[in-house]
């Protein structure tokens, strides 16, 4: 184990996977200079055939990725900010998610799309979206949302080794956060949530950028003698509903924390699964702590107000403390 920053963990995974398999190719706008630092050093090590700066042409980048992946390469496409996923959305929604079926299984698409997501740094509405609900609904795309350096490294390795297209979404601006990462070549499997805190009073489901504040809230709750169980999903597709349901079986209560806009959020879908498949366990309403259905404002206080916070999560949990 070694302590490293989130961004270094991503970088480590890229280095190791590119060393492991020379079919792994990285493309994207300025992946050489690497604004976020996650692709730093790869060009020096692997050269321009395997690490390639591209023009600003997102509609083509996503389409090219499909073509190159269908031709035997494992393509890692760095899209920088999540909002640019929309610019390349046609080939994602109409080709990447659909060709494996449409060709009757002739094509598999080992694609990893990396992008940073979420608000909190006054990047304003065009650089702060949380895009996973939109991607989750397309079908056929895996989605990883790591919240720790170790998970970032392990999930990215799994993504690159997977034969299905995967979106790997980094919580924006968290590149500097430290955590332990195993030295060994360890993958984190898809569809298996982690349980950073075990408890019996209420289930808190979190993902990616929200985990940090959920853990903080959990400490506050514990200090008030409420013992939450925290589930960090790690991947949204596939979704570890087994872990969620068995936690709710124990606690009877669940709050889901998600930085996406509320309508049709991941939180909505998890709610829907629980009230369908776990209704008999439920002792209270299911609360969602999400972002209201508005674009992100620029001004820091207005932005902060919309993003899930310790206060809002704490409050949501407390509303479940009466009998229903």
């Amino acid at each position, binding site marked *: 184990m070694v302590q490293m920053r989130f961004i270094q963990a991503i970088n480590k995974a890229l280095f190791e996977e590119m060393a492991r398999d020379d079919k792994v190719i990285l493309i994207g706008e300025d992946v050489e200079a690497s604004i976020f630092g996650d692709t730093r050093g790869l060009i020096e090590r692997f050269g321009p055939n395997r690490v390639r700066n591209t023009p600003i042409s997102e509609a083509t980048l996503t389409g*090219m990725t499909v073509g190159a992946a269908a031709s035997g390469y494992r393509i890692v496409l760095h899209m920088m900010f999540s909002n640019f996923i929309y610019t390349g959305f046609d080939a994602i929604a109409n080709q990447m998610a659909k060709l494996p079926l449409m060709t*009757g299984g002739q094509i598999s698409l080992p694609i990893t799309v990396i992008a940073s997501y979420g608000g909190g740094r006054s990047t304003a509405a065009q650089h702060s979206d949380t895009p996973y609900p939109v991607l989750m609904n397309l079908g056929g795309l*895996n989605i990883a949302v790591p919240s720790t350096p170790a998970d970032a490294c392990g999930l990215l390795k799994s993504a690159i080794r*997977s034969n*299905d297209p995967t979106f790997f979404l980094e919580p924006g601006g968290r590149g500097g956060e430290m955590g332990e990462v195993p030295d060994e070549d360890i993958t984190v499997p898809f569809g298996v949530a982690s349980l950073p805190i075990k408890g019996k009073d209420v289930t808190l489901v979190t993902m990616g950028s929200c985990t940090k504040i959920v853990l903080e809230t959990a400490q506050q709750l514990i200090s008030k003698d409420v013992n939450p169980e925290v589930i960090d999903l790690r991947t949204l597709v596939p979704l570890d509903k087994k872990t969620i349901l068995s936690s709710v079986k124990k606690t009877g209560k669940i709050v889901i924390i998600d930085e996406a806009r509320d309508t049709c959020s991941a939180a909505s879908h998890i709610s829907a699964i629980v009230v369908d498949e776990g209704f008999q366990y439920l002792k209270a309403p299911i609360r969602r702590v999400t972002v209201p259905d508005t674009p992100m404002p620029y001004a820091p206080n207005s932005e902060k107000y919309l993003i899930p916070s310790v206060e809002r999560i704490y409050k949501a949990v407390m509303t479940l403390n009466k009998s229903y």
Partner: protein
Amino acid sequence: MKKLPNNIPTKDELQKMFRMMVTIRETENTLLASNKAGNTPGQVHLSNGQEAICVGISSHLTDEDQITSNHRGHGHFLAKGGNLKAMFSEIYGMADGVCGGMGGSMHVADLSKGIVGANGIVGGGISIATGVAFAKKLDGSNHIVVTYFGDGASNQGVLMECLNITALWKLPLLFVCENNGYSEFSPTKTVTKGDISMRAKPFGIPIWQINGNEIIEVWQTGQEAIEHIRSGGGPAFIEAKTWRQSGHFSRENLVLQKPYRTEEEEKEGLADDPIIHLTPKIDGAELIMKEVKDEVERASKAALMGTPPASNAAKKLMFSDTYKGYY
């Protein structure tokens, strides 16, 4: 604009190409009849009149070369070596279709033949082809990629993006614009400014603008353009003028209020037929036509005897093995 080389195809080659053109025509006609008879679950977009283009280009391609195509892709598929019966089965929605009945007319693909696929998204195949060409370049092979698209598709911005990237990276991609004078029901010049092939010029890509109804011209141009690409020169662009004999889609007259082409245009268009042009040069043309007719009829009939895929086919294909991904 490059001038044409003087090479001409051998008699054998010409005959082979004639047979393929006739096969495509016969297939399209059979599909139209099947569509009218209710045997194609979806609509079909026929390529009658455009056969010379894909046939002329494909004579220079091997199974290792790849193509992407568009919604009007039956001819591209067959000319590139796709299996006739497997295509019929696909379009009839059968389990033994080339895509298991999952794709249909607008999506026929056979990777084993280098057919990365037709595409229902106008312009969708161009960026995919660019990615395939990127892969070819990384492979270090001298295989090439051809992307077929229409005049209408030329207005999709991805075209410019891909012209830039392929030129920049010298990718082995042949752009083939089949300019058939219409984008659905809009005459090309009402939606497309200037000469389409000129759009490749600012990127330094060599351009040919040809009569797509003359197979020898297509064959010659294809040879030269492909030679340029195989020898590492980067992308090339062919704009082939042609005419869409059977309109935009199979039963358009049922949804249109009034004709969008004059009778005169129809008459001229039908007369300027690549098969009619070529026929006098082919010994035994009639026999070939008869053989092809039989072959196509047999393939279509055999396809109609197929069985549809399992109801849960899509679910099975997508979910059978969640972890199928790991290697």
